[in-house]
């Protein structure tokens, strides 16, 4: 089995973004996932978000673990370098890649098995180190690739396709990300493109650890009535706290406050995130408040979505450890090797 590359026929009338790229330039190979899989919708949202954000495709490094979700990077950004690592270990590889070259944009894609089970440690530590990345989990509550076992995000009491009831408590990656210091935390649903695309777009431009949990139903193994990660369940219980509009840096000056239902967040590159509030009492800068809010609503079986937390002064791993602005991968002999004369001095000091 080989992947079929999509023919790159550029229709002259295709809309172009500011860099002159069409949406096509952000596509990848044809998906081999099940028709209707939530993951494909997320891939499409990533493509749209990169197009909208005017990102040069080759400036993105896309990394993933193992799982149906982790296969997704093959299906978007065909012009980017991608790395399908090992199960649950994408975060460490992404961390290393980021250390080597801080100039690229890092997009980590993972599944709920990948991130909440085998890889929960790496998830935790990449977030707490503040790696500048967008970490997106395609959350379907099951292992898709190995055919339908419960994952650690499956809700207690939810049932498998064969009727087995899950007795374990779920891991909530959102709460963990908040607690661990992620500076951008959002949740969305693969079936809600309107909400998801701008969230991804904003995360890609966020200069710190951005975490997005996306409920992404598995049509093959977890889209039945007993599931809390099915299309129907997600649609019925979607409790959006806000929706984002992204206003590029240049236009940010012109659009300013309306009262009440709008909250503006300026990112460090000047981009304005305009949050149209659905729940007026929700404050996107309140980390603790977000956790409380989530717990309260989760207990009622609601799926709280939207941009849940964003920090106004995010920092990243590089700023914490003080690495130079130039990518480490580009440093040359003269930058790195102390040379023979120094070595002679070291020798002299060792006698």
């Amino acid at each position, binding site marked *: 089995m080989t992947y079929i590359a999509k023919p790159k026929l550029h229709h002259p009338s295709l809309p172009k973004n500011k860099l002159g790229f069409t949406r096509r330039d952000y596509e990848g190979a044809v998906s081999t996932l099940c028709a209707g899989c939530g993951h494909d919708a997320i891939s499409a949202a990533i493509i749209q978000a990169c197009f909208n954000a005017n990102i040069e495709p080759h400036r993105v490094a896309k990394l993933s673990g193992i799982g149906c979700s982790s296969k997704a990077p093959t299906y978007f950004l065909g012009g980017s370098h991608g790395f399908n690592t090992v199960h649950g*270990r994408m975060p460490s590889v992404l961390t*290393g890649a980021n250390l080597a070259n801080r100039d690229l944009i890092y997009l980590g894609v993972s599944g709920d098995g990948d991130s909440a089970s085998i890889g929960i440690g790496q998830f935790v530590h990449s977030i707490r180190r503040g790696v500048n990345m967008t970490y997106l989990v395609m959350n379907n509550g099951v292992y898709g690739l190995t055919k339908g076992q419960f994952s650690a995000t499956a809700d207690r009491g939810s049932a498998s396709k064969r009727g087995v009831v899950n007795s374990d408590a779920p891991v909530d990656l959102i709460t963990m990300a908040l607690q661990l210091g992620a500076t951008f935390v959002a949740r969305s649903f693969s079936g809600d493109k309107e909400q998801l695309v701008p969230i991804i777009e904003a995360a890609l431009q966020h200069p710190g650890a951005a975490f997005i949990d996306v409920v992404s139903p598995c049509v093959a193994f977890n889209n039945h009535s007993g599931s809390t990660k099915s299309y129907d369940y997600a649609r019925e219980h979607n409790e959006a706290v806000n929706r984002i509009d992204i206003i590029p840096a240049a236009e940010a000056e012109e659009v300013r406050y309306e009262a009440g239902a709008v909250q503006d967040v300026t990112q460090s590159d000047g981009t304005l995130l305009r949050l149209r509030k659905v729940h007026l009492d929700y404050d996107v800068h309140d980390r603790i408040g977000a956790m409380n809010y989530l717990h309260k609503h989760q207990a009622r079986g609601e799926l709280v979505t939207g941009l849940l937390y964003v920090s106004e002064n995010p920092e990243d791993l590089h700023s914490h450890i003080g690495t130079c602005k130039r990518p480490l991968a580009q440093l040359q002999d003269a930058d790195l090797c102390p040379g023979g004369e120094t*070595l002679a001095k070291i020798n002299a000091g060792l006698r």
Partner: protein
Amino acid sequence: MTKALQSINDFVVKFANVNGSGSASANELFARSILRMGVPVSPRNIFPSNIQGLPTWYEVRVSEAGYLGRRGGCDFMVAMNPQTWDEDLREIEPGGYLFYDNTRVIHADQLRDDINLIGMPLTRICNERYDDARQRQLFKNIMYVGALAAIFDIDIGEVEKLIGEMYKGKEKLLEPNIEALHSGRDYARTHLNCASIGLKIRRADAVGDRIFIEGNSATALGCVYGGATVCAWYPITPSTSVVDAFQSYCNKFRIDKASGEKRFAIVQGEDEIASIGIVVGAGWNGARAFTATSGPGVSLMTEFLGLAYFAEIPATIINVQRGGPSTGMPTRTQQADLFSCAYASNGDTKHILLFPEDPKECFDFAAQALDLADQLQTPVFVMSDLDIGMNTRLCAPFEWDENRHMQRGKIVTREQLDAGIKFGRYQDVDGDGIPYRTYPGTHPSKGAFFTRGTSKDANARYSERGEDYVENMQRLQRKFETAKSLVPQPIETTHDTPATVGVIYFGSTSPAMQEAMDNLQRRGLVIDAMRLRAFPFPDSVMEFIHRHEKVFVVEQNRDGQLRSLLINEGQINPAKLIPVLHFDGTPITARFITQTICTALNLGHCESMPKQAAL
């Protein structure tokens, strides 16, 4: 009464202490002052895997002839640990000396009558002089160094100079230490009959321009010179000091003075899996990266090592080996990770291993490993061990060719892509099995590829076709063949008369091996020797084996791992390779090697080997 041992510049002194008693720096002072008199020494720490309270030994080999391995046995025991009294007593050579604290009376049945006793009431003297318990302990150590200086005729001026260097900037501590040193010396001069003690140090000129350094520190310096910028690790004995040293060298040489910006990144991973993951990510993205670990860490890293092998990503792994399996003997030495490293991970994998013999080669091989990893796009292990890593060893000075540049391997640049070069990530363009790669972010429209651990075709497209898989695996095998000529070549010692017996050894076994060969030669046994410095084994290794009737393989593990690798890789008749295996966790001794070889060749007991000290 056995005749007292007499020897100048050739004997073994051993200190038995209690861990945490502050003896380490005093003992090192002793060793270094002999070195400063131009006489080679080789000290070894033998220490327990806990922080305080358990026995610890420091063995100093003094050898004007320059033997730096362990000889075996002990000529002069400084017995400061009542707990290990019996054991320590047993180890002394007949005619040897026991230096002990006679504050407490020792009964005759606790002693041996074929050794010489030197008692000094260290505890009593210190209790009289110092009020503070910690001071009593610390100055007791310096005091016995003073006494030993008098006994062995060590120039006290050299000891004073070293104490001065030790307490530079802490002058307040200098004076009381010198005082304790002098009072130890004075006591020995007046109360011990120093002239009757037959082991002496005489000034010599046998050290030359050699340097004295721990292997781990040398490895770290090699990583700095080799251009490593990313280091990810998880603490584990005995490799931790590699990263400590890397950090301090980087702080010295890699911080921009004006801006404070660092030209390196060190991350303490949450475990070894994350650490190697970070190294793999950095290597994929064009940085030189390494991790330092030991056996259990390698166990955890194996899945990633398979990925790096199959996806062809450079990674340097410094494995400072210790006693295994599992947690094994964390503070003891072995060479027992050859299997787990050479074939790490599932499926058909083979990794490059480098075997340094001393700190000089730790430096050289660390720098070279970073080059090889990039050139071959694969994991490269530097197989150090606790014996070289954590002991200060005399070795040739470091050298650096100013014209040397980092070998970045086969990289396709943006310019080449613009010029229309055809690029396929896993194509064997040059026939050496090594493909070309592009760094992420190189070109807006050309040269990007997808890296994965699953099977792929020559253009990096996912493929489960049998032909694609087989071709890829055969190319990887070709690459491994190519590595044979790139890795450090073995070093052969041959003789004028052709020998029928050969010996193969590697790594930290080296100094004891050299001495063993001299011993055997003195017995009239001429053996050809080959020191291996890398896996894969260059063809000359198999030729060496074929040229000899019998080949001993000396190594520090139970299963003869090197021997098995030779059999496996070279299709050698196992009967030809005779294992010489030492694996009790202490560094192998020359006596052990000599005796084992003699026994195997039916030459009988070799303990009568000319040993200058036993007159």
